[in-house]
């Protein structure tokens, strides 16, 4: 399983995304609004998920803006801070 697939599986399981399969999530599709359709409360959960599962803290809004664009940006953000 690639790192991106692992991230997708984690999101689907932890956010209880019904009717969404990990393979349905496009790497460059927006996570919020159109795209995966997450909302601001999912964002709260996402901050905690990233910290809990990948050991990376999103310290402020600017980092959040960078990380939460898409699966691609989220994976890049995590890997830059926690290469393991």
């Amino acid at each position, binding site marked *: 399983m690639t790192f991106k697939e692992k991230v997708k599986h984690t999101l689907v399981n932890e956010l209880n995304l019904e009717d969404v399969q990990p393979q349905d999530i496009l790497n460059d599709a927006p996570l919020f609004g159109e795209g995966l359709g997450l*909302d601001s*409360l999912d964002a*709260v959960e996402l901050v905690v998920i990233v910290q809990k599962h990948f050991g990376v803290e*999103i*310290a*402020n809004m600017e980092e*959040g803006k960078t990380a939460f664009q898409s699966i691609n940006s989220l994976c890049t953000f995590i890997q830059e801070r926690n290469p393991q």
Partner: protein
Amino acid sequence: MKPCNGSGSGPWVRWWWLRFWQLWSLALLIARPGLFVNKCPFFKVLMTRINSQTWSSQSIASRWQHQFFYLAIRLGGRRLAYAFTYPVVCYYMLFRPGLRKRTRHYLRRRFPDHKGLAAFRDSFRLSLSFAKILVDRAIVGIAGPESMDVRFDSMEKIQDLLDHGSGLILMNAHVGCWQAAMSSIHMLDTPVNLLMKREHGDVDRHYHEHRGMPCPYKIIDPDGFLGGAVEIVQALQRGEIISVMGDRVFGNDKNKLKIPFMGETAEFPVGAYKIAAITGAPVAVLFSRKTGINSYALELAGIIRVNPEQDRGLENLRPYVLEFAGLLEGYVQLHPYQFYNFHDMWENQRTEAGKH
């Protein structure tokens, strides 16, 4: 005017005479603005400048009306400002039926038997009470928090909750004067973050703004990036306080539930309970109420502990929202004229019923 003979009393007489004319002019300006605006070049220029400001007020009163009350507080103190609230509220009740109507959403359900004059009296009492709360808020800002006697017997319980290190969600409602609550909470050493949507163009000042003090709490804008999600999580993880309103759904927020409230179904937001489930923070329901001319009481109405292990779907959060709605209903039964949520919480339910 009687001339002043005494050399010692002259300056005082002139000072009071000047203040009298300032207040009289301002009172006349409130009652008959057309006299000034249409005939006096100074006020033509002044009103043009006020009107040309790019922001449109979301507050009920305009900027200069707020300024009038601030001046009244500075010159005559609380009693003078209170005295002015009576004619102002009378004006709004008699000549602004739209505003009176906004008080009826709640009052109709709190006093279903009150019709006609009794209903008008309810609206007047609620509006007058609200006007005095606004005056009190300004007084806290102008004269300092120490000018208000705030009794809060549950400070130790709040400290105990904070000591667990998961942060604390402080849930308020549109009751009493939450600024008084906030000024009391600052006795704790814990930073407070306020999840607050400030309407663009709001002209009524927050208490700290009167004296140019730095904001004693950090404001998180729910309209900011992802509703301030990152800031909320970080604040709670630092063990800080997040203060939210539990009785108002903003905009098109999907995170809401319909809950029985005062005999009908009303909408309540659920975001705070979901955040509590995610972060493990307890929810302390804190209501304030005015108890005297310069005194308030803060009451810890209840502590809601959201189970972090359960499925966080909206329906699973229903028991917690019900608990809050029950606490709020208990409050309005005891203090019917201190509930200032003028938003129609029951509106969507009626609209949907009309469709069927």
